[in-house]
């Protein structure tokens, strides 16, 4: 994702200005659908959300009036929003760390030469292919106290049946487990691509120089994979901050609002309470977090890459 500049040569050695003008017009015509589509469906409504966040706006109360920063003041005193913010961040941090570490391990596994490797790669992709809503809904059943798969295994080992979705801490754990189950595959596939990009000759050279497996990993794999691992960490952090479906289907933010996340708070406030103004201010808080991760990540990544 680093090279933004177009280095390729232009298509035509244009002989006249009119040809050049034609070419530019054609180019604008070709990019217009994508650009206008995004303008209409994201840029414009985003600005509208920003404006809404300064309003007391509710279709049920038939209200739409400017109230300045009141929504934002309420936002930071709202215990539910605070809880959602805390869980959004802690869930993201924990889930991302687990997924990056496990993703690296699974990528190593999938990169080995053995019979059935392609089948294993396909199996790895299955959780990625299932809809988040299917996994979340099935998850309520898998974590069922009496007949759930998870408790059946735990019960066979320890004779106990923990309450998963009723207790705040274990509900949080269940959310992380489901998220890791679904999304590690994606990370692993990308890391696999990275591992495959490392030339086998480097490892051969390392072997000849007498480096053992661990040393080869430390001095060849780690430095070559580091930029990819860092950029993926940022990338999936943004995805995790926007987690919605698993929460919606598995816990509905509960018990209480222990597993509520900001995206879910936007949904509840916007489409259950129909409080558009306040919901918009929560959405802006979510946007600021995405933006911070993006910017910090970008700066951090540049520095890390330039140091290599």
């Amino acid at each position: 994702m680093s090279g933004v500049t177009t280095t390729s040569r232009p298509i035509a050695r244009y002989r006249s200005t009119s040809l050049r003008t034609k070419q530019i017009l054609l180019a604008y015509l070709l990019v217009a659908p994508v650009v206008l589509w995004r303008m209409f469906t994201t840029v414009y409504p985003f600005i509208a959300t920003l404006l809404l966040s300064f309003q007391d706006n509710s279709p049920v109360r038939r209200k739409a009036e400017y109230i300045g920063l009141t929504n934002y003041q309420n936002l930071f005193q709202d215990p539910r929003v605070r809880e959602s913010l805390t869980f959004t961040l802690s869930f993201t941090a924990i889930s991302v760390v687990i997924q990056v570490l496990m993703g690296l391990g699974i990528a190593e596994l999938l990169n080995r030469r053995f019979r059935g490797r392609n089948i294993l790669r396909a199996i790895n992709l299955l959780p990625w292919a299932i809809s988040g809503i299917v996994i979340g809904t099935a998850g309520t059943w898998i974590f069922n106290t009496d007949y759930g798969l998870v408790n059946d295994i735990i019960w066979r080992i320890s004779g106990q049946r923990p309450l998963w979705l009723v207790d705040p801490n274990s509900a949080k754990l269940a959310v992380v487990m489901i998220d890791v189950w679904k999304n590690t595959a994606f990370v692993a596939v990308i890391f696999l691509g990275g591992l495959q990009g490392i030339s086998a000759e480097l490892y051969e050279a390392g072997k000849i120089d007498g480096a053992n497996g661990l040393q080869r990993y430390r001095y060849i794999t780690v430095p070559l994979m580091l930029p990819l691992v860092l950029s993926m960490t940022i990338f999936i952090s943004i995805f995790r901050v926007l987690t919605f479906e698993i929460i919606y289907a598995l816990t509905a933010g509960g018990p209480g609002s222990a597993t509520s996340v900001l995206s879910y708070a936007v949904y509840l406030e916007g489409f259950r309470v129909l409080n558009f103004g306040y919901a918009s201010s929560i959405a802006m808080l979510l946007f600021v977090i995405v933006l911070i991760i993006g910017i910090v990540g970008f700066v951090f990544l540049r520095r890390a890459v330039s140091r290599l």
Partner: protein
Amino acid sequence: MTGFQIGKQGRRILFGGLVLLFVLIIILPIYYIFLTAFVSGPRLFTQPLTYFPTNLSFERFTTVLDSLPIWRYMFNTIFLAVSSALIALLICLLAAYAIVRLDFPGANLVLVGLLASSMLPPFTTVIPLFQMYQSLKLMNTLQGLLILYVSGMLPVTTWVFVSFIRQIPNEIEDAARVDGAEFWQLLRHITIPLLRPGMVTMFLINFIAGWNEFFIPLIFARGIESKVITMALSEAQSVGSSTQFYQNWGNMSAVAILATVPVFLLTLFFQRQITDGISSGAIK
């Protein structure tokens, strides 16, 4: 020498054990949902669970298909997934081609702007879109959903095509141009054939994303005209003999299977293309 061999053997066992654990963690929950859907009556619901039941039946599937408009949901889902993936493919290919090959002022701005716009997730745009859709009469319509499905696919698809097109050497196109090929001929006879594998991959990934979409229909689809299969899961839980515990979970599992089998088949069949597609989006 023996020590070395034991080490090798031990490593082999460790590796096999890890693979087995990995496969079990992925397959077991999926198998469990299949069981819940196919086991007849309350037979699964025992302590400990019965993992190898004897009586299997389709009763949950018939219940669900009889009482919910599953086929209509399926039609809507397929229509949305196929058409959004196709539209995204077409317009992103053209845009990416212009960005890479037609040297125009602002090409980089378009590319960076697209990527930046993906920092604006649906949660930060959905409320004004909801208001807009109500006044434009796009609520509960397939075309309304289609517009938003496509929107979500545009940044990544364009980005991936840009990286694919950059990999095509200029010389190939130069040679064709010397032969007198014009822009559209060049695109049709040179670029598109070379990009075909990438196009298949992006179509598959976007199709799966469209198939699995939930948040957009949750907000904008209200009735049978536009509801999709991912919305049928919660409906299935309250269908038929809704007082029976085992029936609710069985129905839910049956719909979960209907909503998942198509993407499973695609994934198993096109594992390589999908794997390439995911990593090419991130690495290049």
